């Protein structure tokens, strides 16, 4: 046992539309699923991690709902969809510091059942949010804010819509093997670029799905991981970083993964070319291209060329990614994709991904989450996992 902590349990909720369940119920169901996967029970949990999707004040209502009685560590770090990747790093550090032995991380939500127009509706960030007054009048949406990253990437580096489309094509090749995927049909580059324009230059098929569901992870100290009858997936490296508007000195071409990635690689003592599989946050196709560059899988500006021609497809490409179909085709529970990124990375490390997409020799894998506005205000979390 050579890593400081291990992911011993992982569970993804099979639902994609949860009209018959509450958000609290989904949190509890994924927690139970992850505990069963690990071979542990709720009385073993002494650390709990959740983010803004948990109903109530921080995690207090969920602790109450789930009846967690042995907690001695609690962390509600909120960084949108990247929260759960960041939580993994925090859980490892808490375990290293003796603050807890068994950490539970949960995510759940039901935006689809609630009819949320996630990417295309103009929503206020709330009263008193200082940047809000300088944005809401302009009708910006999640889609247009990400689209402007794509516009600038195309302008500076010559990236094309066809290159972006390859990200979706690769995700769809993986999703066809996932019986739970919302979009299991294989699509072509032409299908993507001919789908309706949502926010220039992003088409409908450049965007992720809106889905209900959730997921949970159990992180435990080495002695506990050793005692369990599951593959040993250690957390070898982790990093987190935050990017903002730099007081108007905006540069849309990179994400906070440019900082969180190197932190994780340094801790792990490995380099991008050692990684056999990568889960990359895929809110939009452009999100993947930017993060792949920032994580060092290719040079800045070369991401479009890197993802083209099936290079992300398991079995044929150099960097198999999101083999569950990702947010682009499988699910994006609660509009937050970081949790499912870690879960598929754990499946790959364990050798438990679908046989059609399982990467051979997948002993070293990476997951990267991004939460917030790509380009201007977001957090990134990176984890590197090692199968022992």
């Amino acid at each position, binding site marked *: 046992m050579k890593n400081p902590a291990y992911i011993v349990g992982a569970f993804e909720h099979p639902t994609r539309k949860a009209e018959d369940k509450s958000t609290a119920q989904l949190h509890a169901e994924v927690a139970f699923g992850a505990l069963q996967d690990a071979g542990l029970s709720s009385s073993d949990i002494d650390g709990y991690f959740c983010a803004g999707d948990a109903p109530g004040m921080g995690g207090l209502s969920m602790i109450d709902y789930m009846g967690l009685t042995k907690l001695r560590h609690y962390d509600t770090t909120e960084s949108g969809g990247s929260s759960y990747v960041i939580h993994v790093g925090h859980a490892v550090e808490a375990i290293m510091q003796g603050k807890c032995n068994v950490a539970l991380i949960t995510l759940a939500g039901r935006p689809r059942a609630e009819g949320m127009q996630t990417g295309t509706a103009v929503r206020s960030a709330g*009263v008193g949010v200082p940047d809000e007054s300088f944005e809401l009048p*302009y009708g910006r949406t999640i889609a247009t804010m990400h689209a402007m990253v794509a516009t600038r990437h195309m302008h500076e580096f010559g990236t094309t819509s066809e290159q972006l489309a390859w990200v979706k094509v690769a995700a769809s090749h993986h999703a066809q093997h996932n019986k739970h995927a919302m979009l299991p049909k294989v699509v072509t580059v032409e299908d993507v670029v001919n789908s309706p324009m949502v926010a220039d230059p992003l088409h409908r098929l450049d965007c992720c799905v809106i889905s209900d569901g959730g997921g949970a992870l159990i992180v435990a100290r080495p002695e506990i991981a050793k005692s369990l009858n599951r593959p040993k997936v250690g957390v070898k490296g982790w990093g987190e970083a935050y990017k903002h508007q730099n007081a108007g000195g905006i540069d849309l071409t990179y994400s906070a993964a440019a900082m969180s990635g190197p932190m994780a690689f340094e801790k792990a003592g490995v380099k991008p070319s050692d990684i056999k599989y990568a889960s990359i946050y895929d809110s939009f196709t452009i999100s993947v291209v930017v993060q792949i560059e920032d994580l060092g899988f290719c040079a800045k500006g070369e991401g479009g060329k890197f993802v083209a021609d099936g290079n992300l497809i398991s079995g044929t490409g150099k960097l198999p990614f999101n083999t569950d179909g990702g947010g682009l085709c499988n699910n994006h529970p609660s509009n937050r994709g970081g949790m499912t990124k870690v879960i598929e990375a754990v499946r790959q490390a364990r050798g438990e991904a679908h046989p059609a997409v399982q990467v051979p020799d997948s002993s070293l894998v990476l997951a990267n989450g991004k939460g917030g506005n790509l380009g201007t205000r977001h957090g990134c979390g990176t984890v590197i996992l090692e199968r022992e």
Partner: protein
Amino acid sequence: MATMAFDRQPAAPQESPDNKVYFDGCRAGKLILGKCNDTGKLFHYPRHVSPFTLSNNVEFVEAKGTGTIYSWSVARGKEPFCVAYVQLDEGPIMLTNIIECDLDSLKCGQKVKVKFKDTEGAPVPMFVLA
């Protein structure tokens, strides 16, 4: 092909003691930038704290109101309009709308100039092609 930008009614900005100087500037037809007197650097959005040093040694200066499109997108639909980042000639980049334009021929680097647009609250700065 040409698609004229839809003339949408912008939502009123939330005003606060912190951003009043900016929106009072808009009412007077002036585009205001923050200036950090510790570093001499300009910033957007204006606030009473320097985002470079965290001190309150800031002042507010008027920008010329000219710049270039740094990036843009068009929210498609029945009422399409352009959301853009404009880099002011003074340096800072701000979120805005490009209005009264053909949405099918926008490009990064195009020169633009400010045009204030009324809301139910303070007017807000938008840009037209120069």
